[in-house]
């Protein structure tokens, strides 16, 4: 990834040294990482909104409004995945590491894969 804004669902205060939230719809904040020419230019924090049943499009609209171009999740439900795709946000998958920084660096380096339809969560997954 050469240019764009990455969002990482995060615990607590977030930030590059923080940890990732497994349940993206319920995360405390999104860590936003601006990338320019393949380098981290700026890191900012975006407060998540209240999550209610069927309110999957709230984080989709939140990240879209904040010009996010890529999202990294450990899991995600089918509806929010379709929503992110439909607003032009690419969704990447890493369910191994809890730390934010190495996942961001791997995404910038092109080492993360986009999540596939058969990797979506049902029953209490990442939505």
């Amino acid at each position, binding site marked *: 990834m050469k240019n764009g804004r990455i969002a990482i669902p995060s615990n607590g205060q977030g930030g590059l040294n923080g940890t990732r939230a497994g349940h993206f719809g319920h995360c405390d904040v999104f860590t936003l990482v601006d990338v320019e020419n393949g380098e981290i230019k700026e890191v900012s924090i975006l407060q998540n909104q209240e999550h209610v049943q069927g309110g*999957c499009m709230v984080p989709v609209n*939140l990240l879209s*409004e904040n010009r996010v171009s890529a999202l990294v999740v450990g899991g995600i439900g089918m509806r929010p995945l*379709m929503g992110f795709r439909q607003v032009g946000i690419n969704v990447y998958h890493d369910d191994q590491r809890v730390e934010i920084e190495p996942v961001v660096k791997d995404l910038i380096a092109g080492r993360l894969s986009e999540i596939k339809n058969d990797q979506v969560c049902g029953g*209490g*997954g990442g939505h």
Partner: protein
Amino acid sequence: MNQILLVGPEKNRFKDLTASFSENQITTLWTDTAGKALALVAGKKIDLVIIHEQVPDMTAKKLVENLITLNAMMNCVVLSAMSDEDFHEAYEGLGVLMRFPLIPGKAEAKKLQDHLARISRISDQVKSVKGAGNK
């Protein structure tokens, strides 16, 4: 919300629901199959789809999947006899707003409109929330 599509084998099942929505100037359309529902959604402005769990040509779950693949913004409700736990297990991830009993009435219509109003309030807040990186 202006128009709701009702999908299920018996139109009469939705009679009380339709009457309640009508009192709030919400129009309802009815169809009996998933195939017709998908065609209607593709050609009309539909805000929400309410689906009976026993649609003849497709499972309700598959119809929800097809609807959100067409338009993830489409809200869905399912009429089901499942327990809350089984319903949650079967449908979570698909973003279904709520489960209705097999013959829904005025109380369900009110509950749905209250829930949608809550989501709408949260969505309105989103428009004013910007990250620190937005200048």
